[in-house]
């Protein structure tokens, strides 16, 4: 019986899709997303090297809405400013606000979520009702109100978007904490005499923010879209500072007239950037799913 008979080789079983390949596509997604974002980040970081015009510099020759070519790679906009240069500098604003807003939302949401989820009881009820209230609030109205209240600078917009997003994180983290706090290792740490803060910081929090790490990139993309929406409603970054959403909405009228260059490039930049975040998020999600299985 020691003779090994070379049998027919079968690859895979008919039932059950390819579990292994998930991870691979997840990695492709993550890599693509990260790659896109890296390129965009580099481009906006080195904006001064990549463009000869300042973002708010008006072409003294007075050529507004000049077609691409010549002195202006992507032409000029209605104010006579260089579209390419604005495109690059706008990225700083967009990426900066999105990332800062989401980071702030994560921190705020996590704190609320951990406190609510861990302590439970009336504190949980109160905090959750509070997040309910803010979640039930229409996104745009809340963002608009905050922007109107604080004024429309980049920092204030980030605050507005962070406030809009924080409740979701609070819920996410809370749900996770409620599971984690009943897990054995938390009990173990408790019987070992760990203090509450230590317990939360060293044991509960690190194990509760996994989903947050997956959602955050997706949310960054979404934050950029929200910012664009606010700009479209005239409540984004005030002129003349460049921001993709504002550039798009300023240029929508031009597209109809066949002057694509004022709004298509920022549109694509926004699309690509949000897509980068989405791919990253989706990929992370897929990899997280695989680890869970």
């Amino acid at each position: 019986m020691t003779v090994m008979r070379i049998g027919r080789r079968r690859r895979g079983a008919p039932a059950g899709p390819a579990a292994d390949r998930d991870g691979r596509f997840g990695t492709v997604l993550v890599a693509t997303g990260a790659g896109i974002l890296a390129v965009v980040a580099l481009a906006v970081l080195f904006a001064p090297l990549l463009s000869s015009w300042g973002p708010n510099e008006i072409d003294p020759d007075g050529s507004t809405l000049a077609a691409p070519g010549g002195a202006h790679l992507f032409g000029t906009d209605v104010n006579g400013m260089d579209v390419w240069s604005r495109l690059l500098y706008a990225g700083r604003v967009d990426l900066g606000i999105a990332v800062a807003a989401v980071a702030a939302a994560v921190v705020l949401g996590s704190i609320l979520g951990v406190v609510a989820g861990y302590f439970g009881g009336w504190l949980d009820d109160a905090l959750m009702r509070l997040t309910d209230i803010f979640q039930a609030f229409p996104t745009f109205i809340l963002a608009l109100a905050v922007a109107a209240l604080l004024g429309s600078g980049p920092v204030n917009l980030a605050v507005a978007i962070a406030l809009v997003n924080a409740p979701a994180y609070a819920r996410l983290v809370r749900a996770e904490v409620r599971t984690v706090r009943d897990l054995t290792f938390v009990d173990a740490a408790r019987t070992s005499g760990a203090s509450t803060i230590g317990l939360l910081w060293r044991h509960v929090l690190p194990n509760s923010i996994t989903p947050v790490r997956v959602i955050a990139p997706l949310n960054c993309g979404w934050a950029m879209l929200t910012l664009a929406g606010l700009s479209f409603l005239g409540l984004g970054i005030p002129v003349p500072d460049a921001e993709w959403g504002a550039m798009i909405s300023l240029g929508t009228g031009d597209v109809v007239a066949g002057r694509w260059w004022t709004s298509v490039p920022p549109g694509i930049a926004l699309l690509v950037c949000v897509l980068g975040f989405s791919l990253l998020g989706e990929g992370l999600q897929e990899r997280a799913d695989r680890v869970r299985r």
Partner: protein
Amino acid sequence: SGSKDSTSSSASGGAKSSTLKIAVSSYISSWDQDFVGFDLTALMLYKNVFPYMIDYGVKTVGGSRILDTETIMPTFAESFEPDAAQKVWTLKLRKGVKFASGNEMKAADVKWSKDRAFAAQANVAGIYRTIGLTKPEQVVVVDDYTVEFHQEFPSALTRQIQAISLYVFDSVEAKKHATDADPWAKEWFAKNPPTGGYFNVTKATQGQEIELTANDGYPGPEPAKTKTIRISVVPAAANQRLQLQAGDIDIALGASPRDIKDLKSAAGVEVLSSASNKQVAIQMSTTTAPFDDVNVRKALAYATPYEQIIRNVYGGDARPAKSVVPLDMPGYSEKGYPYTYDIDKAKAALAAAGKTSISSELVFETDNEEQQQLAVLVQSEARKAGIELKLTPLDPATLADRRGKKNIPLQITSGQLWVNDVEYMLATSFVKGANLNYANYSNPRIEQIYQQSHSTVDPAARNQLWAQVQDIMAEDVPWVVICQPNFNLPVRKSVSGWVQPMDGLARLRFVSASA
């Protein structure tokens, strides 16, 4: 054009399309101009659905027909004439004017309407103060078709003021809906459009669409030429342009300047163009640092790129203005504003103020593309002179609030006065405490001229006064006067009869479209 209009108006009804489609940018804020808010769309509609007793005449200038603010003619009224002292004005109503309810318009309606306006303490009540009408008792019914207005003092403005204020409600119908709590039927008028004007509102879908039908109960001259007008709300300018090009609308009232430029060469579309009274300026608060220093104001006046603005923002379609008094207003003088773009002079002026650099915010309306572009240009040039401007777009409520508080150092204003007269301009914009005096301007000599103008009825004498006004303004520079953009209206080629409204409010009765 004028010639085209005469042919189409004389043509038989068969050639005319019975429905005219107009796109506007926003829905009217309300139907009740006494008690609640109104905007340009609303004011335009009021002109067409309220019976206004008198209105501007029409004249032809440079081939286009425009409203003549200097000839004011009775329309729904038979006549509107003063007594010798110009204090008591007698309004004689036209007989047979019918509201949609079938009620005939009578003196009682006029009385009720004016009582209502006084009670509302808003719009008209405020305007009437300039001609010395402050109490309901000053409006007296003489007989069914005659009403007298007893002014406290004679005024050269009466005709102009009444042209924008003498509108009448169907009081018989209104009283049916009045209650003790709501004696002026506010609730009913909020929901139900007024009737009796050139057009009646036959359908109004809130936010979306309004359908006007010609009022066949109007017996006077120049009745509406088109049976039905459909006004649809299309907020996005690009959409209006697309629809106009596709022929889905006949008139695009909310097209953007950029589109208008393109539409001039579009097939099937024509851009009606004419000079307008609309004046664009930057008002500088003369009581707020740094603009409390006249030299700083001069610096900004020199640092403003007038020609570049006309070229870039208005596509060359604007008239350079040389006075705070608008072009075409009686008394306009070139000497009123001797400032031109000159950075060196700007720097010198700033130096004269003892400064090398200053900073301020520049306020303008959110969502107003024109103002935004203008602000960007001014910011860019002013910086060269050492004036750092922070652009601050404000939403309507905040703008109104801050204007009310008079705490805006620098703001862009654009618009036309409802009354084409310097006295009115002074009253609203330059005397101390005037509502539109965002510059917080005050000058004893101006106050004095203003007082004097009340009782000065003779045109030549008035022009004398206005010349003085402009000399003072040239010295004080409360405003950076930028330009007067032309009025441009893209319409389908089939549209005819358009009369350019100098007050910005379209008179739809003149318009028709061939099928």
